[in-house]
């Protein structure tokens, strides 16, 4: 449906193309809020989305500012060493606009869930790239990474990073499925009153499938929801399987495992008694996305599978 506003946007963009093509404005991108023109070689990049920070670093661009990971004050653990000097410009879902302006960015990379009102403000500061939202899908992060790579003028690097992820996942899959069947698993986030079963359409569950696991949600996750409601402790056998990947909202997966282990209902699970529970970093597994996050998730999977093989 072409609303009046869309029409104006289109006209505006057309006018911009006609008038501004003499400057360094080289490329225009398809974003959630229509066409956006970006500088050919952006120097001052601010990322307002964990997936955007990840994609920028994968493409070889170090942003000046980023938002903290969910539940933290810093960028996610797996990226912290790569960006020692990065400025924090807000928390997850809560951007400090003044801090963004202070960095005088020439490109802003944002989340597909950025509200339109925020976009209206940010786009006055610098060209703001918002990937079109496609709901929850295990491959959404690829399209996002490609778009961010394009915005940064570094498509080859992003394509290379994505190909490396695919190749590594294939290798892992060959190893994990060597004995024939794909091992079944759930990804759960442990909450004080019981576990949330994560959707099979998330970034990290997508990586688990790519690495050869049969990820299940036991039919508990409603369509377009990231996870189920907290499961009753009585219903815990629902998360039984060959493997169990366990995270919290926080970075410390081991702590999550200890908390969960205080519950006798959890200790009784067959998968727990077989010691096939993998404690993972919740920031990486349930909040982050991008090519570097994919590599980190695959690292975790590989470590888990290897340590299991040596037992």
């Amino acid at each position, binding site marked *: 449906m072409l609303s009046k506003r869309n029409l104006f946007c289109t006209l505006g963009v057309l006018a911009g193309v006609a008038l501004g093509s003499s400057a360094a404005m080289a490329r225009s991108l398809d974003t959630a809020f229509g066409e956006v023109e970006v500088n050919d070689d952006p120097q001052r990049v601010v990322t307002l989305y964990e997936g955007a920070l990840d994609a920028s670093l994968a493409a070889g661009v170090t942003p000046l500012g980023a938002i903290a990971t*969910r*539940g*933290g004050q810093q960028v996610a653990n797996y990226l912290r060493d790569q960006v020692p000097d990065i400025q924090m410009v807000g*928390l*997850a879902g809560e951007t400090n606009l003044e801090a963004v302006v202070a960095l005088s960015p020439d490109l802003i990379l944002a989340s597909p869930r950025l509200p339109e009102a925020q976009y209206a403000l940010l786009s006055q500061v610098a060209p703001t790239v918002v990937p079109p939202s496609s709901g929850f899908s295990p491959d959404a992060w690829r399209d996002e990474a490609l778009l961010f790579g394009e915005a940064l003028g570094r498509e080859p690097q992003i394509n290379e990073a994505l190909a490396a992820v695919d190749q590594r996942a294939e290798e892992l899959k060959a190893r994990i499925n060597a004995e024939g069947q794909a091992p079944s698993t759930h990804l759960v986030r442990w*909450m*004080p*009153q*019981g576990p949330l079963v994560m959707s099979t359409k998330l970034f990290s569950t997508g990586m688990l499938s790519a690495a050869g696991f049969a990820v299940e949600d036991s039919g*508990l996750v409603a369509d377009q929801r990231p996870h*189920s*409601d*907290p*499961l*009753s*402790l*009585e*219903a*815990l*056998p*629902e998360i039984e399987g060959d493997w169990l990947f366990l995270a919290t*909202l*926080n970075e410390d997966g081991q*702590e999550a495992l200890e*908390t969960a282990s*205080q*519950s*006798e*209902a959890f200790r*009784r699970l067959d998968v727990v008694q077989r010691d096939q529970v993998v404690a993972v970093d919740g920031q990486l597994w349930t909040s982050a996305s991008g090519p570097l996050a994919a590599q980190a998730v695959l690292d975790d999977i590989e470590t888990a599978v290897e340590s299991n093989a040596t037992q």
Partner: protein
Amino acid sequence: MIDEKLRRPMQAALMLLLVTCVASLLIGAGDVGVWRSLMVLFRAEDADAAFTVWSLRLPRTLVGLAVGMALAISGALLQAISRNPLAEPGLLGVSAGSALAVAIMLSLGASMMELRVGMAQLGALLGCACVLSVTRLRGVGNDPIRLVLAGAAFSSLLAALTSLLLLMDQRAADEIRFWVVGSLAGRRVDDLLAVLPSMALAGLVLLALVRPLSSLALGERASAGLGHHPGRLRLLAVIIVALLVGGATAIAGPIAFVGLVVPFLARSLCGPDLRRTLWLCLPLGPLLVLLADILSRCLVAPSELPLGVLTAICGAPVLIAVVRARRLPTLS
């Protein structure tokens, strides 16, 4: 102590409570159904069902009993000392105080599983202490209305501080979010044992205070004329309330409405005398809490609803029915 007027409602309430306790052991959100649970009660060999009944449902039933009694008694006490039939444990800064204490500990890095009990109780006491210290100024303490107002003001302040902490610290916010609505799920007998001594202490002190407290219903002067000290009585009663509500909040989180609706119901069944109301609150409080808990397990299985929401949903129709059925039962 049990007179004619109390006997019949008491018997009925105890019967219902017994049935509810058994139902609470038999009904759940998981695969173990009523029949399998029943077999377990008769010593059948069924490890999974036995675990579900004895290790999951029994502890939460016991916790529900304790929490229900504590909240109902606190409500009745608060209503007696403030002479306000709408007084509630949430009113005197008790619940808000314990929530704040838990939030502070969480943001200092404590984990949800430990520390909760002692801190919540301490916070409840501190919340009460704040309110009482205000009411001590210039003889305000003799005025029940000002006590209620001071409590409301402090509750808002403490709640605002809690929100501030939670806004600043996301980790605490994530962990406390589930505690703030109140629930009996996953509680262990250890949690209960940790708060039982202080609750028992509060109960013993209360036994000695019931008679003088009921004289408060006659008004400050009449009570003083009978040789009691209204100010001192009120102080002691508030400390009892803090211990009870702090303990209940620590194990189950804040559970709304029980402290309001149960004393109301008790009064409408056996009259306004505090000596009867308190006794009838003992079975009625757990009855409401356990009924709500059973519902919370059934409605959205295999998940569970937060108990705090359900006590309100169960409690509100009761309150409305009572209010509509007869003249508002008053306190004096």
